[in-house]
């Protein structure tokens, strides 16, 4: 973002960047920066809170009135993850005991996912695995988690991206079940700590890393802080 700010400004455009990592702006000196102490991924602060988002925009656009730059200002309100409440979001009971618990769970949550897509009119799922194949892909990660070689289950070269589609499937349906994402990282926390599939991805990630799998194949399966 800071590089683009320099490039655009040199091309005759006026820019203002909302930056969640202040240190980068301090070192790159872009023309106008509003530094925000928000969780990464939420540059406007609060999903579903138009009033808060407008306060962020007002603070950012106010910097356009400065006669010279670089300008680096701080948004006065912080949002901290430790203030986040756990997501109230139940998982379905076992339905088919012949399936892996994670696969059974993912299939049981499909209706919630479909409602989320209908409500939002969009989905990020499908970049590397179709939603109809999500449960099968989870089954393949479960085999890795149970000890099979990572390169023998048929997930292909983009398995890290497939894992991201799985996480997104759960986070999108969680927003539907809980009527919103809750606080920052709440859906992520629910996925990795409360669901069978989250546990499968973490264990598969650990095994793949130890087995020397390509970096992107395992690194994308969870935030680095869950190592």
């Amino acid at each position, binding site marked *: 973002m800071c*590089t683009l700010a320099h*490039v655009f400004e040199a091309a005759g*455009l006026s820019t203002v960047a909302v930056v969640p990592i202040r240190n980068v702006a301090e070192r790159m*000196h872009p023309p106008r920066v509003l530094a925000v102490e928000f969780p*990464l991924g*939420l540059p406007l602060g609060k999903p579903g809170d138009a009033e808060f*988002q407008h306060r962020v925009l007002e603070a950012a656009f106010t910097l356009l009135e400065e006669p010279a730059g670089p300008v680096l200002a701080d948004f006065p309100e912080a949002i901290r*993850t430790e203030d986040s409440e756990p997501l109230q979001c139940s998982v379905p009971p076992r339905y088919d005991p012949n399936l892996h618990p994670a696969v059974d769970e993912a299939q049981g949550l499909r209706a919630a996912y479909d409602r989320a897509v209908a409500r939002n009119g969009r989905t990020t799922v499908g970049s590397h695995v179709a939603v109809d194949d999500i449960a099968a892909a989870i089954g393949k990660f479960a085999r890795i988690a149970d000890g099979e070689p990572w390169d023998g289950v048929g997930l292909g070269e983009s398995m890290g991206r497939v894992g991201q589609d799985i996480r997104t499937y759960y986070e999108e349906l969680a927003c539907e079940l809980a009527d919103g994402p809750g606080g920052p990282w709440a859906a992520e926390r629910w996925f990795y700590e409360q669901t069978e599939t989250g546990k499968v991805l973490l264990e598969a990630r650990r095994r793949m890393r130890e087995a020397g799998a390509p970096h992107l194949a395992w690194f994308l399966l969870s935030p680095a802080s869950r190592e």
Partner: protein
Amino acid sequence: MPDNDQAMRNFVGTLPVPEFAETAFTTPPPLRDARVAIVTSAALYREGTPPFGVPDVHFETIPNDARDLKLGHVSPNFDRAGFAADLNVVYPVDRLAELAASGVVGSVADHHYAFAGNQPDTVSEVRLDTGPACAKKLRDDGVEVVLLTPV
């Protein structure tokens, strides 16, 4: 709960950044007269178009009325559910429309743009190729002010 945000801030703080000898500065018109666009590094792309790769130096053109957007940035180290619930928390296109309707901004651009934040370390493509190309498209659209949003 591990504090992923602070861990990432600490990590990114150790990375080298591109150096610019000076800070270019373009004085904007009054906001109430300005045409505004969003450029995000969230790697947003539309349904039916190929996802961003790793790395990927291209940028996507997003019509102002498009809402069928996908979050293409591959990093697992940010809150991805906020976008799932409300795309405006990353890409505040509805907020801009409200500001234009109330006269706070002059107008909203016909198109916005999305890059991938995870660029090669030199960011030479952004500096020398895709960045200037995007700037030309913005200027051709009459844009004067660009709001930059990362994830």
